[in-house]
């Protein structure tokens, strides 16, 4: 007795091929696409104050450390307090509408609520000071901040991305004096060689504690 139509004879082959492909395709797809490289890079939220790094850093030439003053000393680079802004803006553009939230914060004592862009998971203990101290440039992780009107995430900050550098750090180091220089290129340090003895950690507790 013929229970099934003849056309079903191909079914095992088709099902076998599809079954063999689905797993690898899903895994490769997740591996390639579901990463911070696709979901984090380019994140540029609207901030409460339309602060322009392009103006302050690129055109006026302010040093990163004028505002992010803890970057050499502590784990956090620090978002500047309202007082830092008011150091200049108490006298410059005192009636600018764009600066209204800053003046309000100055009067009320309530900090401006900047939107956090470079977020790491809670179980990652990243330390700015050690990276700056060995000569990792600001640009390496944050990109050309001096050209950004609105700050956007430039690098994925994923674990694999961190490990790439920890395993081969030399291409990402520069002389310590050039850390905040946005225009620095390796050609500008002819004759300078990165140190051989840094041994950045690649074990779990190097970053997870």
């Amino acid at each position, binding site marked *: 007795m013929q*229970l*099934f139509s003849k056309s079903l004879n191909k079914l095992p082959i088709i099902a076998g091929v599809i079954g063999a492909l689905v797993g690898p395709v899903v895994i*490769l797809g997740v*591996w390639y696409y579901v*990463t*911070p*490289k696709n979901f984090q890079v380019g994140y540029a939220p609207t901030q409460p104050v339309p602060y322009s790094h392009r103006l302050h850093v690129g055109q006026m030439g302010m040093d990163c450390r004028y505002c992010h003053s803890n970057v050499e000393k502590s784990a956090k680079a620090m978002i500047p307090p309202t007082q830092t802004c008011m150091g200049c803006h108490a006298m410059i553009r005192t009636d600018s509408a764009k600066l209204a939230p800053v003046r309000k914060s100055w009067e009320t004592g309530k900090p401006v609520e900047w939107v956090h862009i470079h977020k790491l998971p809670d179980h990652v203990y990243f330390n700015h000071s050690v990276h700056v101290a060995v000569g990792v440039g600001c640009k390496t992780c944050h990109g050309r901040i001096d050209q950004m009107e609105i700050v956007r995430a430039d690098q994925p900050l994923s*674990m*694999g991305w961190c490990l*790439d550098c920890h395993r081969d750090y030399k291409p990402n180091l520069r002389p310590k004096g050039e850390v905040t220089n946005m225009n620095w290129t390796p050609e500008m340090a002819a004759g300078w060689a990165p140190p051989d003895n840094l041994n950045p950690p690649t074990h779990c507790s190097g970053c997870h504690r």
Partner: protein
Amino acid sequence: MSSVNLPIKSIGETPLTAEGTTFRSITETVSRVTENPAPRGWWIAFLMASSFLGIMTMAIGYLFWMGVGVWGNNAPVYWAWDITNFVWWIGIGHAGTLISAVLFLFRQKWRTAINRFAEAMTIFAVICALVFPGIHVGRAWLAYYMFPLPNEMSIWPNFKSPLIWDIFAVSTYATVSTLFWFVGLIPDLATLRDRAKSPLRRKIYGALALGWRGSNRAWQNYERAYLILAALSTPLVLSVHSVVSFDFATSLIPGWHTTIFPPYFVAGAVFSGFAMVMTLMLVTRAVYGVRSIVMMKHLELMNKIMLTTGSLVGYAYGMEFFIAWYSGDQYEQWLFFHNRASLDGPFSWAYWIMISCNVLSPQVFWFKKMRTSIPVMFVVSILINIGMWFERFVIIVTSLHRDFLPSSWGYYKPTLIDIFTYLGTLGLFFTLFLLFIRWIPMVAISEVKGVLPEADPHHDAHASHDESHEDGHDEAVGTPAIVAAEAEE
């Protein structure tokens, strides 16, 4: 030309099936279980089993919601009932492959009566075992970290760790035993298809039978495939539990760090697997009346295997003590002599339950009277199941609860959730098992037919034909042709 199928009368062998068994009676006995409505007892058992399955689901749901703190595991006993249950279930899963693959290669024809049953039990036990590695990881939704999948974090499992070997060993075992079981089922599913009355039933069994027609060529390919799968699964009988034992043996904890573990675990696994087959077989045999196929002879042979493996396990227990003494390692000596065996040890009760159930109870099988007594073998098989659970508990918990730092010593007590999860996996096991009995031929019909005297093709004088041949198949024909002929009925 004499045949491997025929009993050798001069050494007292008797046929592997009961007097009066015919091709037809085998098909009838086995198939009608799946065709007649389920008896009331089946429904009661199924209801109970699925209730326990529900309890397991709730216990695991609660665990996921609350975290592993709902279990009794805590420093220094980081592994407790979870891994005990895992190893226990994996061990039980060993009888199936041993019976189906190793005994097949050794031409132990008596296996045909119990192999389907044991293989099904293997698969269900492996499913129960696989529950535990998945839920014991704390954050179960990250359990896929156990597999070496490429990811943007650039993290891989530690290939030097036996835990990853374990993943490969157990998943290979699950795959190969399922494949083996299914290949063995194909001719029998075709029998059910051909007997089916309703079109739906015919379609379902027809799809599962993969278009089996019982032709000579199909049988040739089939038997070759079965042989290859048997050869593939044979090393797994030894490898899986060896690798499970590496989880312990490669660590430095006294009581775990032992070279005897791989063979000792394999012997224990076969031991517990046979005990579980025995427990289930005795009940099923009584309920469904397959006594003519699963005879006392088979049960007795299984008891002999249990006596052998039980004594092997007993030897391993003894050898652990010898090595503890002989090595001069004071930590190991303290663990074995004080912590486990001496009544001062907080878990010595578990140790002595293990010894009495695993080493002492199977010794009754030295006596033929005991080997052939159904109540005795039923009680002993249950004692062995209990004893083998305690063996894993003793290995895991007594070794951990007194580690090198007396300041961190502790005691382990299971919580209700531990107990519910364990009982729940029994529910999962029996639910699957009852479904199997209900829907799938529980005895390998075609293989049992193959060991009937009538199935023996021979051209010599009809000297062996003084046996009774009820159904008149006097012609020299092989099993395949007969099964095919019967499928046409």
